[in-house]
């Protein structure tokens, strides 16, 4: 089989548009692509065999987009997915929006009908660049073979520069079939646009320094931007030198080590009480690569009223969007911290941290994981045991947890202690149910040497369960933990709290997940006793094959602490006091 020339710098070759797609992807360092073929993208699939790129066949295009997303979140490299025109392209939409809301760099390539029939409602034609306009960082419609390489290279630049995000390239079938001369280096995009709003101004740096020096009760709000910027070490150094406690957003978990003495935990709607109280009592908030989402601020009018705010952010449109800040440092977090750090003398006063730690009170004692086994299995046990398993095996640095969306996601955030960045893959902004399984496939493809765990609810898992087949076909050893409570748990919890227990459409029937796994050739087991959790988790981790665990947990358990929508951060509902004896009695 002759391979077209495609190494960078080897000069110009004449290729078909389809070959140019692969050659350019290869030049960009792409080794895996997630996709699904179809009429309008057949020329590209025909050319695939000539290139050393692995194609992972998905079962639904939404899965392809989530896989590219999980791939990018786990590895930091751009994830690539592919789909045909029409329904193939529209099926990507949820996955693209998920990546957009969490600023994940993915490149989506879709086939399109021939340019001669564009706009004629041809078979499987859909205006995907129009549809994805608000959910992509940028998109392209390419109708000529010679435009393919520059478009793909520019797409990679756009996806990864500044605040990352998804980019879609729609390529007409005639452009795939036509030929053009190709040279990787010649398609290099111009340097990124200068952004007049970027770069922290010296006067704001001075203001920030003054605020930090005069602060008595500062808190760092650690967001996803820390990992996006690669600023983990700078944040640790900064927090340590200034003795500033760190609270994390959901996507910020792992960017600051959970075991670090300065780490408080997760903030927001289901954050621990002492974290939220610390934010409300703070006199200075340092927001690092986070965007004051409504899930972390609660009621905005009562949010951290006594605190000055310093916002370090790469996207100027986030400044003053939800919370008015006193100083904005626009730019890459890592660079800003490297500028700030030398200007601040070391501080040793740890009184504020001690005060926060003292305020924990009974919150930790009430925690379900600290209560004796009462015969009930709680999701918290499962997640806690998965974490202990990773810890006991010395795999803390090499474990990636991929969650779905709902109660189990919040319990994961509370009970799995993330010590390293990129160890939690979760849909934060869009909250996409069905995300976990495909995103885990992407994560495992990117990091085959790591233990990848899916933690999903019984509802969300059924949304994309078809990808079980992909796991088997691609021989991916992914561990799947289904937290099965027979309900759409978070919906049920809200109905319990805000809709007078009217459980409208939240009880959900599931298939026997273990039999479903068996049908795919995946080993599985049911667990409903706490004592069985650890041995099963160990078995799954060491099996070297995909393994599905159906954890039958407490049906009407709730996620606490909780802040009701519209309430302020300090008005949280604490964990209920559980009486182990009473619960056991009920059970018998």
């Amino acid at each position: 089989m002759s391979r077209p020339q495609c190494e960078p710098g080897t000069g110009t070759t004449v290729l078909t548009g389809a070959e140019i797609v692969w050659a350019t992807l290869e030049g960009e360092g792409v080794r895996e692509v997630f996709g699904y073929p179809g009429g309008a993208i057949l020329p590209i699939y025909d050319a695939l065999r000539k290139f050393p790129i692995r194609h992972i066949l998905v079962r639904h295009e939404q899965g392809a987009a989530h896989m590219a997303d999980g791939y990018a979140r786990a590895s930091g490299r751009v994830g690539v997915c592919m789909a045909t025109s029409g329904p193939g392209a529209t099926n990507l939409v949820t996955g693209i929006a998920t990546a957009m809301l969490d600023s994940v760099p993915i490149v989506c390539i879709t086939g399109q009908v021939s340019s001669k029939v564009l706009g004629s409602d041809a078979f499987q034609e859909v205006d995907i660049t129009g549809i994805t306009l608000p959910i992509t960082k940028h998109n392209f419609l390419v109708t000529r073979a010679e435009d393919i390489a520059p478009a793909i290279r520019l797409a990679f630049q756009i996806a990864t520069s500044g605040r990352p995000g998804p980019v879609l390239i729609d390529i007409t079938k005639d452009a795939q079939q036509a030929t053009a001369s190709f040279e990787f280096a010649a398609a290099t995009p111009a340097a990124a646009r200068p952004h007049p709003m970027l770069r922290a101004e010296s006067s704001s740096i001075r203001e920030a320094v003054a605020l930090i020096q005069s602060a008595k009760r500062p808190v760092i709000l650690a967001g996803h931007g820390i990992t996006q910027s690669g600023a983990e070490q700078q944040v640790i150094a900064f927090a340590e030198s200034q003795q500033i406690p760190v609270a994390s957003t959901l996507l910020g978990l792992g960017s600051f080590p959970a075991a670090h003495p300065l780490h408080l935990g997760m903030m927001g709607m289901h954050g621990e009480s002492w974290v939220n109280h610390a934010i409300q009592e703070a006199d200075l908030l340092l927001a690092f690569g986070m965007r004051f989402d409504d899930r972390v601020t609660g009621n905005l009018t009562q949010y951290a009223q006594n605190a000055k705010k310093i916002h370090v952010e790469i996207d100027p449109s986030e400044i003053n969007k939800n919370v008015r800040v006193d100083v904005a440092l626009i730019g890459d977090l890592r660079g800003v911290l490297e500028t700030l750090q030398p200007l601040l003398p070391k501080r040793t006063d740890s009184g504020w941290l001690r005060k926060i730690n003292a305020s924990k009170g009974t919150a930790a004692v009430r925690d379900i994981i600290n209560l004796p086994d009462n015969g009930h299995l709680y999701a918290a046990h499962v997640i806690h045991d998965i974490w202990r398993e990773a810890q006991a095996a010395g795999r803390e640095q090499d474990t990636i947890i991929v969650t779905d969306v709902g109660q189990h996601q919040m319990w994961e955030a509370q009970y799995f202690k993330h010590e390293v960045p990129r160890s939690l893959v979760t849909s934060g902004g869009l909250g996409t149910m069905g995300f976990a399984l495909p995103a885990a496939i992407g994560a495992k493809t990117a990091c085959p040497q790591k233990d990848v765990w899916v933690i999903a609810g019984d509802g969300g898992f059924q949304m994309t369960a078809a990808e079980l087949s992909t796991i088997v076909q691609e021989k991916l050893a992914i561990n799947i933990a289904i937290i099965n409570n027979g309900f759409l748990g978070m919906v049920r919890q809200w109905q319990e709290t805000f809709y007078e227990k009217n459980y409208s459409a939240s009880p959900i029937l599931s298939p026997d997940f273990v039999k479903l796994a068996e049908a795919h050739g995946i080993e599985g087991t049911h667990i409903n006793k706490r004592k069985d959790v650890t041995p099963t988790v160990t078995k799954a981790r060491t099996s070297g094959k995909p393994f599905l665990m159906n954890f039958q947990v407490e049906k009407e358990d709730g996620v606490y602490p909780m802040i009701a929508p519209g309430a302020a951060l300090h008005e949280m509902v604490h964990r209920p006091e559980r009486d182990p004896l009473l619960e056991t009695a009920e059970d018998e």
Partner: protein
Amino acid sequence: MLHTFVALVEDKPGVLTRVASLFRRLNINIVSLTVGESERPDTSRMTIVCDAHEHAAHRIRASLYKLETTVHVDEVDRSAAVVRELCLIKIAVGPDTPNGPHSRSQIFELANVFRARVVDLAPESIMLEMTGSSSKIEGLVQVITESGYTILEVSRTGRMAMRRGHHTSRVLSALGSKPSTDGNGADYSSKLDLDEILPNQFENVHEEEI
């Protein structure tokens, strides 16, 4: 309040949709939007007037910058810029109108006062062309109506704005006056001193304007 933005954007299919879609997404009504060629090849200049909250300007400007097709955005206020609009007005004027045979000369007089030009004359109608600020155009329309004439058609371009005096932003000077036309756009990095600290521009945080 009304905000006026002057944006330099790439001249490509779909760019107008991207800009319009941005305002739709922010739930902000566009009062007027004009687009035309600029002094730079492959680049259009847009004047966008929108009705939004007083503090919305920074976010709109930053969001416009987020569009990959945007080269430059400037927010202008009336004192610092010349703002003009072109208007065509067709008026029913003939022997049957209020002033009978004198109607035409009365319209000519009004046109003179408002510095409008007569661009079409038909037995039953007159078409005027006028350039000016929006209030001046509204003034002419009002006086014609109050004089008892029937306005048959009005077509307005919407506002165009240009900053007064010698004004070149650092971004535009970095781009050079004649960008390369090889399809790859200008090589920004070679011309923009990356160590130069550019001012942040948003309300209540930094007031400085380039």
